[in-house]
Structures are given as structure tokens and as C-alpha cells.
């Protein structure tokens, strides 16, 4: 009896000691999908690196990182996503939250996280409202930071910057004054501001908008849309696509031998599996991206190579969970505390050299946009390989190619 009581006491003490020795980070993502897979991969790399080096130094005490894998299933269900957040906070006792992908779901997940005053580092969702919440009600939403990507409006700034350079190439190569652009944006909340900005900005850039097509994000056939674009004489297809429709566009443009080149956001086009999914037809499709073997920061190339060696694939932008965990480590060590209220001001004031960006945050806790720092890169599929071509100032960039007329 006495021996049992002593053993139980020892067990409880050991459990408590172990709990004190770990920092629990919930990685939130659609784990059955590529986005969630890369969320988790990036986080695992950060965890292993930190724990191998002795853990996080919290005021002289070494604490190990413990990851909680939370499948939000957010691509299919927003309620599933909020349930996952609730579960990791209340049952798994997560200290911090990292991840999220679909804006509609992350907006709901943000509410749950803020209810519990949990530091939530977003890696995946672009909608401006997430940051606008911080500005409109700082006390409630100050625990939210967007580590990747930049907000939708800033994504548009990058898109137009790259569009400017592609436009110049078309003017030069095709000897045309006013390149014709077809806007192809899936119907989703994150494209609304981008479509409005494109319709306003492209004419100011001396480009003619021949039309705006908005298929469903899950459309599998865009033949009618592409046919209409061909008839309108489009030379650039300006894409804003996050769903499988991005694959259909790449493949069907190739099958039709379209002379127009696709540039924009094509989330499926960022994945290594894209070329296979498009059956090798997506030649010259280009997209905004985050990772490639170019020196965006001193950490980019080593990270991309280590990721490739471990997971046998290129990281997508949701692998920036790595940067989010490294940011957390840096501010926890600086604060000597795991208290979220002490970490928030340090993240607000700091500059963090990550693997995909050199991050500083504005008053909305959004990344401060800057070419070569947070604006990301542009890549083009050329003969089965993702070739980086923008910003040209970064070492390792290669030429952008046009389909032969």
C-alpha cells in the first residue's frame, strides 16, 4: 500500500517535471493534404534541430520542443478546424499555435485562439482581415502574427512587380505596345481584393485586360474559359488559383498549345507534384513561390537542401512553420519566459532572418513587404523543373521563357 502510494507520487512528480521541461507547439494544418504535410515537415525540422542542440533556453532552464500534430481538415470543413484548435488548447494543453492554410478557416481559428489568449503564428493564410483584426482590436488580437505569406494586398504588389517585368519582355519579344491580359481567378474570399486590384492596376501599367474569368476553385474543366481567352487574344493569363483548378489550367493550356503564358498565384504550381499532376503539360506556367535554391537569406539554400534530403521533395510555403518555431525560440530566449504577453512585444520589435524571408512586422502583425526580403520569389516550370526568375537581383535567378509563337 505504502509502496504503491510512493510509486504513484513518484510518477506524478516525474510527469510534472517532464511537463515543465517541454514547450508544446500545436501544428495546425490539413494533414491529409500537401499544405499540411509541409506544415508538419517544416515543424519537425525545427524541432529536431532545436532539441538536438539542447532545447530552448528559458531563463537558464533548457526546455525541449514537443509538437502536437493537429489535423484541421480545413480544406473540407471550417468547423473541423475550430474543433481542432479547441482540442489542442483544452485537451493537449498546447502553449502556442502555428499553421493554418485556408483563410476562411483561419479567420475562425483565430477567434478560438484569441479567446484563450494563445500566441498564434499564421503560416499559410493571406486574407487581410486577419491582420486588420489586430489593428481594430489590439488587446484581443495581439497574439496573432502572420509569418507567411504576406497579406493578400502585398501578394498583389509582388504580382504586379513581376507582371511589369513579364510585360516588358512581351513588349520586346512580341513587338506589342499593350500586352493583353486575361484575369483568371478562382471564386474565393482571398481573390476578391486581388481581382479588384488587377482590374484597376493593369490598365495603369499599359496592359489591356481582355476579361475576367472566375471558375470554381474545384473546377476540373476550364476548356470554355481558356477557349474564350484564346479568342480574346490574351498573351498573359494572370492566375489567382489555390485549388486543383490550377492543375487543370496548366494542363489544358498545354494541351491546347496556347501561346499565352500563365503568371500569378498557382498554389498547386508551387508543389513538386504539379508537373506530374499536369501530366507534363504545364510548360512555362509560372507562379509566386517562397523556396528555391537561391540566396534569399543565408539560410535558404541550406534549408532547401536539408528539406530535400530528408523529405525527397522541395518545401512549399507552408514549410515556413520552421521559421515560426525559430522565431518563437528566439523571443522566448530573449524574454527568458514562455509568457505570451512578454513575447508579443519582442516579435513586434524584432527582425527575424528566416529561411524564406527576413521578417519584420507592422502594426497589424503582418509582414512588412519588401522585395528581396518578404516579397517571395517567382518561378516558372521549364521542362519539368521549377526555375526561379524573380527578383533578378537575387543570386541564382534564371531567364523567364515564353511559348514559341
Amino acid at each position, binding site marked *: 500500500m505504502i509502496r504503491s502510494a510512493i510509486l504513484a507520487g513518484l510518477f506524478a512528480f516525474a510527469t510534472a517535471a517532464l511537463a515543465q521541461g517541454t514547450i508544446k507547439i500545436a501544428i495546425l494544418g*490539413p494533414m*491529409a*493534404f*500537401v499544405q499540411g*504535410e509541409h506544415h508538419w515537415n517544416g515543424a519537425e525540422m525545427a524541432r529536431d534541430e532545436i532539441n538536438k542542440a539542447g532545447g530552448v533556453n528559458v531563463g537558464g532552464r533548457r526546455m525541449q520542443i514537443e509538437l502536437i500534430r493537429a489535423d484541421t481538415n480545413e*480544406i473540407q470543413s471550417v468547423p473541423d478546424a475550430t474543433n481542432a484548435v479547441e482540442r489542442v488548447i483544452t485537451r493537449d494543453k498546447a502553449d502556442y499555435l502555428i499553421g493554418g492554410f485556408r483563410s476562411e478557416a483561419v479567420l475562425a481559428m483565430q477567434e478560438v485562439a484569441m479567446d484563450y489568449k494563445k500566441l498564434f503564428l499564421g503560416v499559410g493564410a493571406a486574407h487581410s482581415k486577419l491582420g486588420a483584426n489586430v489593428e481594430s482590436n489590439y488587446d484581443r488580437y495581439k497574439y496573432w502574427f502572420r509569418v507567411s505569406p504576406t497579406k493578400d494586398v502585398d501578394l498583389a504588389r509582388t504580382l504586379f512587380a513581376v507582371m511589369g517585368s513579364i510585360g516588358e519582355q512581351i513588349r520586346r519579344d512580341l513587338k506589342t505596345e499593350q500586352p493583353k491580359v486575361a484575369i483568371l481567378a*478562382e*471564386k474565393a474570399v482571398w481573390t476578391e481584393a486581388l481581382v479588384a486590384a488587377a482590374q484597376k492596376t493593369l490598365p495603369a501599367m499599359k496592359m489591356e485586360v481582355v*476579361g*475576367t*474569368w*472566375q*471558375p*470554381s476553385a*474545384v*473546377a*476540373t*474543366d476550364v*476548356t*470554355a*474559359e481558356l*477557349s*474564350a481567352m*484564346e*479568342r480574346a487574344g490574351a498573351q498573359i493569363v494572370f492566375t489567382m488559383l489555390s485549388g*486543383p483548378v490550377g*492543375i*487543370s489550367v496548366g*494542363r*489544358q493550356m498545354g*494541351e*491546347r*498549345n*496556347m501561346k499565352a503564358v500563365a503568371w500569378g498565384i498557382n498554389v*498547386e504550381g508551387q508543389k513538386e*507534384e504539379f508537373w*506530374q*499532376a*499536369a*501530366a*507534363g503539360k504545364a510548360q512555362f506556367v509560372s507562379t509566386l513561390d517562397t523556396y528555391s535554391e537561391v540566396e534569399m537569406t543565408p539560410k535558404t539554400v541550406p534549408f532547401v537542401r536539408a528539406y530535400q534530403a530528408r523529405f525527397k521533395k522541395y518545401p512549399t510555403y507552408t514549410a515556413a512553420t520552421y521559421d515560426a518555431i525559430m522565431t518563437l525560440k528566439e523571443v522566448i530566449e530573449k524574454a527568458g519566459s514562455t509568457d505570451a504577453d512578454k513575447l508579443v512585444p519582442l516579435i513586434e520589435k524584432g527582425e527575424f532572418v528566416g529561411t524564406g524571408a527576413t521578417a519584420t512586422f507592422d502594426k497589424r502583425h503582418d509582414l512588412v513587404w519588401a522585395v528581396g526580403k518578404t516579397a517571395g520569389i517567382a518561378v516558372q516550370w521549364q521542362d519539368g523543373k521549377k526555375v526561379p526568375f524573380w527578383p533578378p537581383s537575387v543570386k541564382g535567378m534564371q531567364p523567364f521563357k515564353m511559348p514559341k509563337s
Partner: protein
Amino acid sequence: MARIVNIAHTAFYMLAAYCFYTLLVKVGLGFLTSALIAVLGTVALSMLCYRLVIEPVREHEAAVLIATIALALIFQELMLLSFGGNYLGIPSTLEGAVRFLGVSIPYQRLLILVVAAAMLALVWFVLHRTRLGLAVRATANDLEVANLMGMNVHRVAMATVALSVALAAVAGVVVAPVFVVDPFMWLAPLVTMLAIVVLGGLGSMKGSLIGALVIGYVEAITVFAVPAGAYLKGAVALAIMVAVLLVRPEGLFGVAFEEER
């Protein structure tokens, strides 16, 4: 025609596409062998599902509806578990494209057209020129009389399900190279299929053909007329279906079934 509302119909189309993908891309078998195994395997599975899931509840239409929804969701989750949510691509059976009146048409699309026409002809032949077809039509017309005449209505229903799933599986095999293969690929064609069948009229082959053309053209015209509303093409097609049903509840070429006695 078997008077079974099989919601899992397009899920079999998805399974055939996955099977075709695995055999062709992963195992490395040829197009024809992969297609044949995919279609036969899917048909065999559908017959098993009929015996185990549909037949026991066949008398209750609502139960059949729910059971087939459950089947479809099980197939979807199994594919999600096995292949993940990744979008998979299948190489075209026929490469290249032809330009016709200024429009570029990939050969794969022409193949789909040819296969669809061949399948239509085959179904017409089976229904109108074979004893099985006669039994299927008799059962569709009046289940109880067919039963009283000595037909094994369960076997006929199973043959009808197998025939219809074979068509779905062939569609999965020839259409998959044009689209992407993913666990949710069965949802969009399900709505379109139901719209076509209801618009054309239940039990009418001619109705289904004309219904498909109407829905297809309406979708294409929507994209050309309202580019920014391209995502509405499905909704517009469904609205037309509802409008037709308000005027003709049995659909354009509906077959009036005998009331159950």
C-alpha cells in the same frame, strides 16, 4: 432503369480513375490492360456492393439513397487515406491536338467523344436487341409484373447496376487523363449527372443524351456570356433543369412508370 438512386455511381467513376492511375502510372501496365482491369475490377466491386449494401434495403428508396451516400463517402475516405489529398495526373492516351474552325481540340477529347458514342450505341444495343435488355426494360416498366412473369428481378437489377457502373468506370478511365484524380472528383459529376438524368427524363436514353447536350451548352455559354460568373455555370444549368421540371415534371422525355401496386 433499375429504379435504384445510386448516389455512389460517380464514386465508382472515381475508383476506376484511381485504379487506372495505379496500374498505368505506378505499376506501369499499358493503357489497354490498365483500362480493362480498372473497368472490370470496378464492376466486380459494384456487384459486391449491390449484394451486401443495396439489395438488403432495396425495397426502401430512402434507405438505398442513404446507403449509397455512405458507400460513396467510404470510398472517398479510403482514397484519401490511401493516396492522400494529392491531385494526381494521368498521361493522355492520345497526345496532340487538332485545330478545327480556329478552336484547338486535344485528341484525348475526341477520344472521349468517340468512346461516349460507342458506349451509347452499346447500351442501346443491349437494351433493345438482347434478352437482358428486354428484362431490364420490363423490370423498369413494372417490377411486380416482371417478377410475376418469372424474371429474377434481383439478378436483373444487379445486371443493371453492373452495366451502369461499367459505363461510369469507362468514363473514369477515358476522362481521368483530361482532369485530375482526387478523392473528391466524384462530387461535381454527381450533381451534373443527376441534373442531366432528371432534365432528360428518368429512364430515357434519348432524354439523357439531349439533357447532357443542354447542360453542357448552358455551362459553356454561361462562361462565354458572363466570364466573371464562370463559377455559376453549374448553378445556371441546375436552374434550367428546375425550370423545365416546373413545366414538365417527368423531364423532357420522361418515361411514365406504372405506380407500384
